[in-house]
């Protein structure tokens, strides 16, 4: 029997999948089918070449460095509970640094306006993330397999070569594909640190074809098609050969001491290294400058308006992404073993492999002139939808394991004892849900605060969030003002991400 919740979940999930993903995606291909697309235009080919080159170099370096850092940190902190937890949290933090903040910090350090600057910033941004994947992957390898290899005569190197590396390979492939996609889809870092032509990637070229001067839809679609081939197709294929996870975690892990030790602290310090470039914004001058611009009436208004817009967009994005992810996991469990349910993981995770610019272009082609759906209207709906697409995968990955362990019998027992659906949920499930729910909310809220792609593409003068304000002030050579706002944005985002990570783990 279909209940109200099933109906609500189906409607919200279907509308999201159709309106925010299928229609925009379809619009790009149908536009390409009926219009001449300058696919091999020299400017676009050059952008594709640079995109591939910088993404490949950045992700290869991140993979090599990240594997080393992950292996090294875990080796040092493996048996020290507190230092391993601190190392993990510190490695997760750089991912929460908004791209405009990172760009602003690199400019402050004098690294900028070249392809190398883009690659350096990508490597420093992604290495801790890869290290975190590697630590999780290594922790997932059963301790008894490693012990067995030792008792059978393996040296440390042989243990790594024959046991750890094969087990870790799916993690490394997955990490590489994700980092490659992140680098290929990178917008703010390339826009600011690349310094304009000749460092133009598909993302920045697509953006300029829509928002800088004339509207050249054919060239924008050509960029989008290249981008889909470069990021979405490998992403899709790699998701299909996704690692066959067999989690052994905590089953045979080594006993951990609560105390910290010298080696544990070294692991923490190594993880901290990757935050140092961003800490360059934490200088007295930035605080002083923040005070100055907050005292200036015009700037103060811009900042307060920006803050309000950022908070509004982030709140709606977090709520939207969480609602869709919950609808997805709820329906997936309800339709257990149904072929439709087996498509949900793909439908909700795959869109994260399409860039904001590409999906935004699709929305523009599909919905222009359609009232509140028109991306260039003052409605926040398209921006929120666009941002939600990227964050829904995160929420889905966290919620799915919780929902799949739904305590059906206990829930039914509560119902037979006279509890309503809501009371039964609170009594049986809420304790398991509340930590991850608050955590994911804070993570998405913090992440959306720094999002710059969707808001750049669909900005209008009445809606300039903080991240775009940094972007704009840097373009106006107001570097010190931009750094002061970056500082504010970084503190906000990192605070939220810290709260998010700690809650999500509960």
């Amino acid at each position: 029997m279909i209940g109200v919740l099933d109906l609500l979940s189906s409607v919200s999930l279907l509308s999201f999948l159709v309106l925010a993903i299928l229609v925009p995606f379809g619009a790009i291909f149908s536009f390409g089918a009926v219009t001449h697309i300058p696919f091999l235009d020299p400017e676009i080919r050059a952008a594709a070449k640079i995109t591939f080159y910088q993404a490949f170099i950045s992700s290869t370096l991140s993979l090599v460095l990240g594997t080393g850092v992950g292996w090294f940190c875990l080796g040092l902190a493996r048996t020290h509970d507190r230092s391993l937890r601190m190392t993990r949290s510190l490695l997760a933090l750089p991912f929460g640094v908004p791209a405009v903040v990172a760009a602003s910090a690199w400019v402050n350090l004098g690294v900028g306006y070249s392809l190398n600057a883009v690659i350096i910033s990508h490597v420093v941004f992604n290495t801790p993330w890869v290290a975190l994947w590697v630590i999780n992957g290594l922790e997932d390898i059963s301790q008894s397999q490693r012990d067995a290899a030792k008792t059978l005569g393996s040296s440390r190197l042989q243990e790594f070569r024959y046991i750890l590396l094969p087990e870790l390979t799916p993690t490394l492939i997955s990490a590489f594909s994700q980092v490659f996609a992140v680098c290929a889809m990178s917008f703010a870092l390339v826009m600011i640190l690349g310094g304009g032509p000749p460092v133009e990637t598909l993302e920045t070229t697509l953006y300029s074809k829509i928002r800088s001067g004339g509207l050249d839809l054919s060239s924008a679609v050509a960029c989008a098609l290249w981008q889909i081939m470069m990021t979405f197709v490998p992403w899709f294929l790699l998701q299909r050969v996704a690692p066959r996870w067999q989690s052994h975690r905590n089953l045979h892990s080594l006993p951990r001491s609560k105390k910290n030790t010298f080696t544990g602290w070294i692991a923490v310090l190594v993880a901290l290294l990757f935050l140092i470039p961003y800490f360059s914004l934490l200088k007295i001058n930035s605080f002083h400058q923040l005070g100055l611009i907050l005292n200036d009436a015009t700037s103060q208004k811009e900042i307060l308006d920006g803050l309000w817009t950022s908070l509004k967009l982030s709140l709606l994005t977090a709520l939207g992404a969480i609602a869709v992810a919950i609808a997805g996991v709820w329906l997936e469990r309800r339709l257990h073993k149904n072929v439709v349910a087996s498509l949900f993981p793909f439908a909700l995770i795959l869109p994260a492999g399409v860039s904001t610019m590409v999906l935004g272009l699709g929305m523009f082609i599909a919905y222009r002139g359609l009232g509140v759906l028109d991306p260039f209207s003052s409605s926040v709906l398209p921006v929120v939808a666009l941002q939600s697409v990227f964050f829904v995968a995160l929420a889905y990955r966290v919620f799915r394991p919780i929902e799949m362990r739904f305590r059906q019998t206990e829930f039914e027992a509560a119902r037979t004892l006279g509890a309503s659906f809501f009371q039964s949920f609170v009594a049986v499930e809420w304790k398991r849900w509340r930590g991850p729910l608050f955590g994911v909310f804070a993570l998405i809220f913090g992440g959306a605060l720094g999002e710059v792609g969707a808001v750049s593409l669909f900005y209008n003068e009445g809606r300039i969030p903080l991240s775009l304000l940094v972007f704009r002030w840097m373009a106006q050579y107001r570097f010190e003002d931009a750094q002061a706002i970056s500082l504010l944005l970084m503190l906000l985002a990192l605070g939220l991400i810290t709260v998010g990570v700690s809650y999500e783990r509960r």
Partner: protein
Amino acid sequence: MKGVEVVNHVKGLLLEDVRKVWPHLTLEASFHVAPSERIAIVGRSGAGKTSLLRLLAGLEPFAAEVDQGKLYLAGREITRLQPQERQIGYLFQDQALFSTMSVLENVAFGLKVRGVERAEREARAEKWLKRIGLANQAKNSVERLSGGEKQRVALARALIIAPRMLLLDEPFTGLDSALKRDLISQLLEFHQEDPIPFLLVSHDESDLSALATGVIRVIEGEGENDKIRTLKRSY
């Protein structure tokens, strides 16, 4: 074995005034196990039985400052040797088969890390698979095996390196009575063929009586000494 000299003439396993300290547990042991013996370690859950096996295998290293005593195996002192230098077969409770390798590769692994040529190690592994009745599964992934088959593969993997001692941690967990009987008869056959000390941990006394020739009891300390476990042989 390279770098290890023969230091006494006691065959089998000898623990000489061993005292190993962990934060939650201290093990004290002095006993001898002859090569012809199959010894069951008996004690309640959490008493430190698996810790003893891990200590013997070298997976719990001796800390010079706090740990005392000496371990000898087949006339050699092994107290401070790394696990890979001890030549001890270990049947893990969860088998610990390498999930990325085939059945044949699992069995041949110990030979591979010892630098045995591919053709030779495969031939030897196939011979072992034939003995345990799994020759037709050689190329399969270990994940496709049943519980009993996994246990036999783990046993072949442990024995192919010609160990000087075999440690068995709950080898009968998850096996039905027919599979248990098969495994016990195979273990007895292997022991008869190559008498090395067998030390086994099991919570089921009937398994132990079918296989063991002697018992080591874990005696738990009381009061202030509640963390101390003393291992005593019963005859």
